[in-house]
């Protein structure tokens, strides 16, 4: 079953479909459940989003939780509560009100990124910017990832502000402000980030 929204549409109630495509503006007042969701434009889901594969080119706003296998975002992504996936790849700006929980997290920031907590296996956060425009902007605007807690097995951070970072192999790059790093195997820092404390446990 396929649901195509071209232009502007509002759906009241819960939607269950195989494929959902929003080209333009879509508003789902209830829960949305699908195998595939593709947003080219703007979509707002008032309650829970449960979709295997999510692809957003534009804006996605979710009022409750997101549960997915694969999330790929270019644009803006806002989730009020927790966001869970196996793969989370964002070249974007996002705000997650709860926990971002994914096995593989790859973030390239194009704007302020915020999550209350981040947890997973491989977490990589980089500042996007090898383009000319990116480099020009870099001097005025350094978007940060802000999180209270980041925990994972292999963590590599740039431009991140976090109170606590915990992992096995932790690499802290430029422009980071971290309150405390706890690592079990390896800790590497590059370009002297603002770091208050490190501790090793093994």
């Amino acid at each position, binding site marked *: 079953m396929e649901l195509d929204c071209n232009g502007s549409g509002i759906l009241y109630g819960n939607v269950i479909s195989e494929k959902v495509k929003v080209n333009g503006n879509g508003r789902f007042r209830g829960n949305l459940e699908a195998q595939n969701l593709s947003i080219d434009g703007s979509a707002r889901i008032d309650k829970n989003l449960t979709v295997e594969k999510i692809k957003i080119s534009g804006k996605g706003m979710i009022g409750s939780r997101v549960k997915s296998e694969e999330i790929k975002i270019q644009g803006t992504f806002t989730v009020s509560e927790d966001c869970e996936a196996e793969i989370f790849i964002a070249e974007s700006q996002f705000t997650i009100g709860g926990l971002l*929980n*994914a096995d593989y997290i790859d973030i390239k920031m194009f704007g302020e990124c915020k999550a209350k907590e981040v*947890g*997973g296996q491989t977490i990589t956060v980089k500042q996007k910017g090898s383009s000319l425009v990116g480099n020009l902007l870099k001097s005025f605007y350094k978007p940060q990832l802000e999180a209270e807690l980041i925990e994972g097995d292999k963590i590599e951070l740039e431009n991140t502000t976090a109170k*606590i970072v915990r992992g*096995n192999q932790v690499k802290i790059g430029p422009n980071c402000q971290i309150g405390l790093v*706890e690592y079990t195997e390896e800790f590497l820092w590059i370009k002297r980030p603002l770091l208050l404390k490190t501790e090793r446990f093994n």
Partner: protein
Amino acid sequence: MSEELISKKDLLELAGISYGQIYRWKRKDLIPEEWFVRKSTFTGQETFFPKEKILERIEKIQTMKENLSLDELADMFSPNVANLNYSKDQLIRRNIVSTAVVDFYLEHEKGSLDFNFTRILEVFVLEKLLQSGEINLDEGKMVLQVLKDHGALIKQKSCELVITRKLGMSSCLLLINAEEFHFERGTKVVTALSLMKCMEEIKAKLL
């Protein structure tokens, strides 16, 4: 049943698991969300777990991981069993009940020969208690009545069936989400059966 808590950090070390694993098991609902307890410590907000429960669950996951996928494991631990339906013969064959006990059950309950999960749980509990010799047939009838009367509550997670005896008189209680229970000295606690554990045992036998 007072809960001793263990911090996430200590747990990882004690159980020999990694952050990636704990977050994965959380996503797959192998570890219920209620078990993630947030508390304030001097470093900020930290997560703790009920120590005994989580260590037990992790051991189960690690043992069964070899044979089952994470999704199949999740089905094992979830209380969601709406679709199970087995016949009396299948239950006997799968070693869930003995013929004697299931006949006793049907004699008093007068239901059909097709068992949904609620009835499978009832007959399984009966089987456990009667076979172990902890209760006699009359007490069995009493257990059945309690289970039937309050069956809807069993769907909640933490349910315990307690049978007591004092001066030859037996009684049966269904405790929901109870932390502890204490009786006066003259009362003997014959058995305290966790219904959650029974459900897991049944599912393990059916898998």
